[in-house]
């Protein structure tokens, strides 16, 4: 890496150089995982992590990088998921085509609401994105004749000619889906990191630090914000479409406000602005409920307690805080010798 490149972004080191080996190990481990995972439950757990992490990586571009809040991303996730059912069912398009079509629909919705919404800032943006998520939830619940209402609706299997992709309900199916979702999250991660360290990512960080100064640097902040909003919605929508075909079933719960909140918690816990942080945050918050199930009635209380303690000791999120201490330790050691 040339000197000028490292000069441009101090964070590049923590995520690229120091993290490169860790990422390679993580990647190798995830590739080998299908050979060791004992049963469907474990495959499903990993797939849930991949799905959540994909949404979180996208949301992190909007919230962590550009500093714009969204409390309604579950809405985009659900729109993507329902596309998997509704498009083949009512428009008769092939299930495989429903994947790109669903993603396009989510992108168009995000583009339509992104313009007016992103004129707002802070609490007001939080409120309106929250309202969007709730609207999707109400819509999916109340249009029973189309969406199946609160009961949800079964998703048709993915088919290509005479080939049918099984859902994740069988061990054979879950193994295939593990690979599909792993590929998806790798693409999502690589794209996010490429954006983060590009001139576009740099401008997004500038928007986070001072929107008005970014404008006077000649940057069209409005379209940049809409761009990153649509992009993060595409992440959520894509994860949603694949999640629907994987589970074979969708319900309005997918657009629940709680899910939007958990997504935000994932990226804050992992460390705002860090793509790998989003993945780690998603992994922790997907696994924890299973671990804490041992506490039965106190499960939610324990989850809350852990989050509070984490945010006290890792104020900037796990990855940035740990990254800083590692660098400090490294610098001190180098200094000594």
């Amino acid at each position, binding site marked *: 890496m*040339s000197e*000028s*490149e490292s*000069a*441009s*972004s*101090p964070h590049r080191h923590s995520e690229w150089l120091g993290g490169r080996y860790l990422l390679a190990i993580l990647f190798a481990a995830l590739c080998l995982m299908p050979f060791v995972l004992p049963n469907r439950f474990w495959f499903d757990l990993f797939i849930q992590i991949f799905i959540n992490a994909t949404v979180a990586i996208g949301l992190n571009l909007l919230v962590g990088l550009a500093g714009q809040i969204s409390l309604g991303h579950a809405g985009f996730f659900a729109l993507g998921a329902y596309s998997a059912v509704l498009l083949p069912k009512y428009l008769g398009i092939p299930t495989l085509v429903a994947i790109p079509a669903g993603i396009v629909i989510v992108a168009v919705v995000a583009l339509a609401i992104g313009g007016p919404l992103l004129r707002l800032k802070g609490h007001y943006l939080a409120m309106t994105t929250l309202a969007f998520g709730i609207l999707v939830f109400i819509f999916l619940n109340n249009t029973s004749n189309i969406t199946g209402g609160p009961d949800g609706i079964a998703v048709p299997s993915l088919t290509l000619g005479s080939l049918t992709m099984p859902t994740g309900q069988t061990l054979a199916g879950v193994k295939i889906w593990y690979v599909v979702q792993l590929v998806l999250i790798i693409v999502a991660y690589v*794209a996010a990191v*490429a*954006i983060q360290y*590009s*001139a*576009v990512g*740099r*401008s997004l*960080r*500038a928007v*986070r*630090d*001072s929107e*008005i*100064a*970014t*404008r*006077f*640097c*000649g*940057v*069209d*902040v*409005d379209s*940049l914000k809409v*761009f990153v909003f649509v992009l993060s919605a595409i992440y959520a929508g894509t994860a949603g479409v694949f999640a629907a075909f994987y589970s074979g079933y969708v319900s309005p719960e997918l657009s629940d406000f709680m899910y939007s909140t958990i997504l935000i918690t994932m990226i804050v816990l992992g460390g705002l602005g860090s793509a790998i942080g989003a993945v780690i945050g998603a992994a922790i918050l997907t696994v924890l409920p299973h671990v804490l199930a041992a506490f039965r009635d106190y499960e939610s209380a324990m989850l809350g307690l852990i989050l509070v303690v984490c945010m006290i000791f890792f104020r900037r999120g796990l990855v940035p805080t740990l990254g800083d201490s590692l660098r400090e330790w490294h610098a001190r050691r180098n200094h000594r010798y």
Partner: protein
Amino acid sequence: MHDAIIDIKGLSKSFGGVLAIDALSLSIRRGRLTGIIGANGAGKTTLLNLICGVFKASSGSIHVDGQDISGLKPHELAQRGITRSFQNLQIFGDMTALENVLIAVQSRYLKNYLRLVLPLKSVRADEKKWHSDALQWLALVGLESVADREAKSLPYGLLKRLELARAIALEPKCILLDEPAAGCNSTEANKLMDVIRSIAGRGVTVVLVEHNMKVVMNLCEEVFVLDRGRLLCSGTPDTVGSDLRVVSAYLGSTNWDEAK
């Protein structure tokens, strides 16, 4: 007046019935280091915000190079060569000094997002060019040695200069500076004045909105005095200065003698 870079005619701006700018007409000449002074509430910053497209005028017009700029957004004005600094610092704190300047340098190439994200040779070449450009702008304000420091860790005086580097990196025709010396000690203010002079020396029209009379009187070739949204008088610092004694009641400023 063909040598006017900014031509303001009958400009008014009211905030809920309060006239901040009242039928103001003035023109700022190309290449002149121009000062805009006045007491608190005289409308200096409002005028600056009107010129920069932050506020929309209630009536009247602003022409830049003969072109009506009403309705243009700040980034469009910046692309057309009008930019500004801020009274309260607006620095990208989490970024290095170099990256701060890069934001301005790269802005005109920020069109095809997809291309910029792809690992292309041409993109890497662009990045390299932008980096060396940004370093040059930093050198112009004497900040090349702190290029890789995180901006929020830099002292106030340097951040003021960093803001100037970022503004000049757009290669603008005209820079409006909102109280550049505010909060600076005299050493910092002197250094800042040197930098402003060198910017003006490059043929950029610099407009200062300033409280610090010493800065205005030392730097400016032409001074406009605002009072309650109207032009009270204008001219060279000396002519305004002699007038200034008369209007010191309006200005509420007693440090004129010190400044001399």
